[in-house]
């Protein structure tokens, strides 16, 4: 008999949104690794961003202090999350906004769909938002006959290419300029075939393509980078101006945010507005940041809805060590420095949250069993921890999650056999002789026989030495 405890921390439900891949990381990664174009694109992009980011971080003499402040603010947020959310709700409501609570992806999708339906609009313009990707909002809207239009350039490239995002900041990072040109020519009606693959020309085409849509769509959906509990202020950080369009032009604005995005005070923004741009796009400041508090009469949307989403976050919060994954400000610095991400790209991770942060966040949001291979998608080199602007100890979390993940029975059997053998010197010597025999038998380079071939499928088996240490010692 199952009893559902209402009010107990819960993981994100399956069957909706994009937190679970369809196959384990190793098999998905193998496909990415075999794509030389993808690897060239990723190598080029991550090298560029690492250099840019390092340059602007070096300009800030108090970077380490800002990181420590950012980490401490986020730890404080999690410790006081319920009261801060209630405070945010009160401030947003007092400023003319309407606050909704969503326990999971299904509920959030239903709330947003109903709100859009109530306006009578059959189209929404969207600001790039990880959380609406996480909950599969576009699919839910489309099913309800509402067309979601992604307005961020990279999201537009992904949407027009019928593709999946592969990076937190630059979802089309796996596409180069020539591929983007082809997608535009194929999917945008009326594009001049003489279009070049110059980035400026491609950006100009996107400007023309979306302008009329911006001016005629009456509802927008956004995420949020920060929400200030003390003032009820929401902040969206962006580059292109598509965010400003969505946050300014429509009559109705619907913002979906994960509960962990709240910060206690206005002053806290002084830390994150320094950390985020330098760690993410490698800029001193991103071109545009919009901040709004409820509704401003005569300026911008006159109806504002804020949807506060759990969808597994309470389950992450319940783990004393694991909860630091909720500090994440979605800068993607950990992706850009990760030797695994740089080679496999984002699709191999299955979830919308790829790279090191995805490897610790996705399994916690869904429960480890549903993303069991992700904690292993790392060499534990620690570059992600060094790069993280809010000091999430990703290697520590990876190790903890590996411990929690279900282990194959062959692994347990092999470990038990090894322990038994190593406890018994004669048996150990016999085993070493057997290994040496295998050398003579010519198994070299072919890996282990089943069922142990799982180990050697992605690793070279070292050649056994001609003489063991014990043999050398005995014959000395």
């Amino acid at each position, binding site marked *: 008999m199952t009893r559902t405890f209402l009010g107990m921390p819960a993981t994100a439900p399956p069957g909706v949104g994009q937190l679970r891949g369809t196959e384990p990381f190793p098999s998905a990664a193998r496909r990415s690794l075999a794509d030389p174009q993808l690897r060239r694109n990723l190598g080029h992009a991550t090298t560029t*961003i690492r250099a840019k980011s390092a340059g602007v971080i070096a300009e800030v003499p108090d970077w380490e202090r800002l990181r420590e402040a950012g980490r401490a603010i986020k730890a404080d947020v999690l410790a006081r999350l319920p009261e801060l959310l209630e405070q945010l709700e009160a401030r947003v409501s007092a400023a003319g906004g309407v606050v909704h609570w969503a326990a999971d992806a299904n509920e959030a999708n239903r709330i947003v769909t109903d709100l859009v339906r109530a306006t009578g609009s059959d189209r929404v313009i969207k600001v790039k938002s990880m959380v609406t990707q996480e909950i599969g909002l576009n699919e839910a809207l489309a099913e309800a006959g509402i067309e979601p239009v992604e307005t961020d350039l990279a999201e537009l490239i992904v949407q027009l290419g019928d593709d999946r995002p592969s990076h937190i900041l630059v979802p089309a990072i796996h596409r180069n300029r020539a591929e983007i040109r082809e997608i535009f020519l194929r999917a945008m009606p009326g594009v001049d075939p003489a279009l070049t693959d110059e980035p400026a020309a491609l950006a100009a085409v996107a400007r023309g393509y979306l302008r009329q849509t911006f001016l005629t769509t009456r509802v927008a959906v956004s995420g949020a980078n920060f929400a200030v509990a003390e003032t009820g202020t929401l902040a969206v950080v962006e580059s292109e101006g598509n965010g400003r369009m969505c946050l300014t032009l429509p009559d109705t604005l619907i913002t979906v945010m994960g509960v962990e995005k709240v910060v206690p005070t206005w002053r806290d923004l002084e830390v994150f507005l320094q950390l985020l741009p330098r760690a993410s*796009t490698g800029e001193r400041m991103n071109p*545009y940041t919009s901040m709004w508090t409820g509704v401003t009469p005569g300026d911008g949307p006159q109806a504002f809805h804020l949807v506060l989403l*759990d969808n597994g976050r309470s389950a992450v919060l319940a783990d004393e060590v694991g909860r630091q994954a909720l500090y994440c400000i979605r800068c993607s610095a950990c992706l850009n420095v990760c030797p695994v991400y740089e080679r496999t790209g984002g699709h191999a991770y299955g979830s919308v949250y790829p790279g090191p942060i995805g490897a610790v966040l996705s399994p916690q949001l869904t429960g480890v069993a549903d993303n069991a291979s992700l904690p292993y998608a790392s060499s534990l080199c620690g570059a992600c921890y060094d790069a993280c602007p809010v000091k999430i100890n990703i290697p520590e979390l990876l190790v903890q999650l590996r411990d929690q993940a279900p282990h194959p029975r062959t692994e347990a059997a092999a470990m038990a056999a090894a322990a038994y053998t190593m406890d018994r010197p004669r048996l150990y010597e016999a085993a070493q002789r057997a290994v040496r025999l295998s050398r003579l038998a010519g198994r070299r380079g072919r890996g282990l026989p089943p069922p142990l071939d799982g180990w050697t499928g992605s690793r070279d088996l070292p050649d056994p030495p001609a003489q063991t240490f014990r043999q050398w010692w005995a014959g000395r």
Partner: protein
Amino acid sequence: MNSRDLVLGRLRAALAGGGPAAAGEVPRDYRHTGTLDLDQLVQRLTDYRAQVHRVAGHAVADTIAAILPAGATVVVPPGLPPDWLPTTVTVRPDDGLDNGQIAAADAVVTAATVAVAETGTVVLDGSPDQGRRVLSLLPDLHVCVVRADQVVATVPEALARLVPHRPLTWISGPSATSDIELNRVEGVHGPRTLHVIVLA
């Protein structure tokens, strides 16, 4: 149980079950102020492809006349100082212009509330000399006039000067994207040309 109680109940249960949360005092020993340097503001704005003009207060109109071709249509917020505008352009004050009229203008001229030298940022807060947010968004060219006493060195100083409940737009250079091969390219949906006039 409604969803509000459900979510809040889950979060409370998570905190109760997960042991004591390690939330100490937030260390605020990072820099709060800096040495104000107008040259730095100019350099940082220029670095992100804004065009910067340093002029005396009486020279704003002449500077704008040199930026905009004669006969250009310019939308302006209702409270913009009239002597900033040259006679060579057609001025449309925002007395409730619709989005089509704003989008059709060649340029917009606004004041600012704060500028941040270290990051090359100007901030607009919807005051009468800055106008509604849409005004500085739809025209392809934005001229923003900043007084020297509005410039601060650091981001913390800027936040301290701003009023949170006003609609705020932080602008650091013209519209740009890093979405194609992670290279910064200027010019997507916002104004593709940004002129900042810094008054000495």
